[in-house]
């Protein structure tokens, strides 16, 4: 998995600036749409660590996203984001540790089936038990934006812009953090496992621990994405944990390109944009989504990032 070079990074930074400037000219509706894309990008980026990084296809990733979202619902209403965000990460990481430790006893398709089954189990926990507050979802109070006693009061009119900036900031931090991580020994080991796990083990790496660490980190980051979606929409629903949601993130990864760290970000924006454009044509969203997947799988196996070769070093 390649990290964008100097030119690619510059383009990404320019794109981020453009998104940051959206509140100057875009309507609230489009700001919310941009936030949706930013959250989707965080979610897909977190999954890319598992899929593009370690070469493991997980179908249970949405569960960690949903747990991060439900963290706000489970904590007392209206407390600071400085508490809810770390709590969302911690809860998602604990769940990922449990699921990962069990699922990583298998490989390949069995890993996929196991993560799907455990993800569905967590879906049932929030769907069917009193913990989640009902199968139709619940409205939540947004966490307060205060840090070290400094509160940021947002007038209702500017909320969409504020959410956009928070989501953008967190996505940028996540991307830069992962780009740096891929340059460390840990990142190299992960890519080595993707290439040939047996060889890495022969070299003395504890491959299962490396994979588990990546899985847990990816879970925690999915928790951040879930937290951000819940905060942006002030609403949580068990559907956030459903495996279809995780499959959509896989689609974003494939759409953007499996081989590049920034691929999922491109893929998420393309996916959200396609979804929005398709509402103009038809109400049958699943039809459009299904056909898009078929087109990508059949015709564009290297994703959007594979089209512009100049993006790659």
């Amino acid at each position, binding site marked *: 998995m390649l990290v964008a070079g100097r030119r690619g990074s510059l383009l990404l930074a320019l794109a981020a600036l453009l998104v940051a400037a959206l509140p100057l000219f875009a309507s609230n509706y489009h700001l919310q749409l941009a936030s949706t894309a930013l959250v989707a990008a965080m979610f897909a980026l977190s999954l890319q660590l598992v*899929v593009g990084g370690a070469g493991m*296809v997980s*179908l249970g990733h949405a569960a960690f996203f949903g747990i991060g979202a439900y963290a706000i619902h489970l904590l007392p209403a209206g407390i600071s984001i400085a508490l809810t965000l770390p709590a969302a990460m911690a809860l998602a990481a604990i769940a990922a540790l449990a699921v990962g430790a*069990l*699922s990583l*006893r*298998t490989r*390949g*398709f*069995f890993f*996929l*089936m*196991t993560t*799907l*089954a*455990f993800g*569905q*189990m967590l879906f*049932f*926990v929030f769907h*069917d038990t009193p913990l989640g507050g009902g199968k139709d979802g619940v409205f939540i109070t947004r966490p307060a934006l205060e840090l070290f006693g400094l509160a940021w009061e947002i007038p209702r009119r500017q909320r969409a812009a504020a959410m956009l900036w928070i989501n953008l900031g967190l996505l940028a931090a996540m991307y830069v953090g992962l780009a740096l991580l891929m340059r460390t020994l840990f990142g190299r080991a992960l890519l080595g496992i993707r290439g040939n796990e047996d060889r890495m083990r022969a070299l003395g790496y504890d491959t299962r621990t490396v994979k588990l660490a990546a899985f847990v980190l990816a879970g925690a980051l999915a928790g951040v994405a879930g937290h951000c979606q819940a905060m942006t929409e002030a609403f949580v629903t068990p559907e956030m944990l459903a*495996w*279809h949601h995780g*499959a959509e993130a*896989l*689609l974003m*990864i*494939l759409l953007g390109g*499996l081989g590049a760290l920034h691929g999922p970000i491109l893929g998420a924006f393309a996916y959200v944009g396609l979804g929005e454009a398709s509402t103009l044509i038809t109400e*049958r969203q*699943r*039809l459009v*989504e*299904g*056909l898009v*997947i*078929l087109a*990508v*799988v059949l015709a564009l*196996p290297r994703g959007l990032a594979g089209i512009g070769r100049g993006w790659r070093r």
Partner: protein
Amino acid sequence: MDLSGLLAQLLNGMQYGLLLFLISSGLTLIFGVMGVINLAHGSLFMIGAYAAFVITGWTGALWLALPAALIGGALFGALLERGLFRHFYRREHLDQVLLTFALILLFEEARSALLGNDFHSVQVPALLDFSVPVTPDFAYSAYRLAVLGACVLVALLMFLGLERTRLGSAVRAAAEKPEMVELLGLDARRIHMAVFALGTALAMLAGALAAPLQSVYPNMGDGFLIISFVVVVVGGVGSVAGAFWGALLIGLVDTLGKAYLPEVAGLAVYVLMAAVLLWRPSGLFAPARG
């Protein structure tokens, strides 16, 4: 404990488990022989159930739906294999996952466009609409007993077919060591198509058999798909016998759990799967591997 109640739950559990076997045996064979995962396998079950609903609606006879599901399923499976899956055997896992996920979306969309999004019920055939006295104070639905019998029959035919016929032994060889097929000079394409047709036919038959037992509704295949994955993980890698015992075990645990421990029943099968992964990660009934 109430004995006749327990007996009813045991029979229910076995019947549910045997239906699960019809679904998961196809899943595990397709996976074992072609190394491809089919997330749309649950949708095939859904299509079978809707086929039963439509056919009983037209003709009033469920028994017509069963051969229709079997034959239609085999043809549909062969078509899917030929047109789509054949090109994906050597592709990345991610491509296969997304391809079959797309099929789920398209099948569900087709179902919604053709038949709408309502829940439907399918009549139990009049011939079997009575109860069989099993013990003096306990009677059991004749249709459920018939489903039990039909599933056992299919399982027996399948074992005989796999053990005693040339095609069956080729399929077994392919499931255990895919590279064996070419070494033995067998026609891999024919085997692949046969396996895919069989798996599809079984999933659609299961759907048709299950239609009168529960309502027919959108996304009904989803739950069965995931429980079938649990069966395959618990039962063991690519083995039909593993799928059989795994399906019975999961069916019984789930049904008895729902009857006697309703608060935690939804989680029981997953806890069982976690225990199996801790104890024997390659599955409870996996053959010893050299």
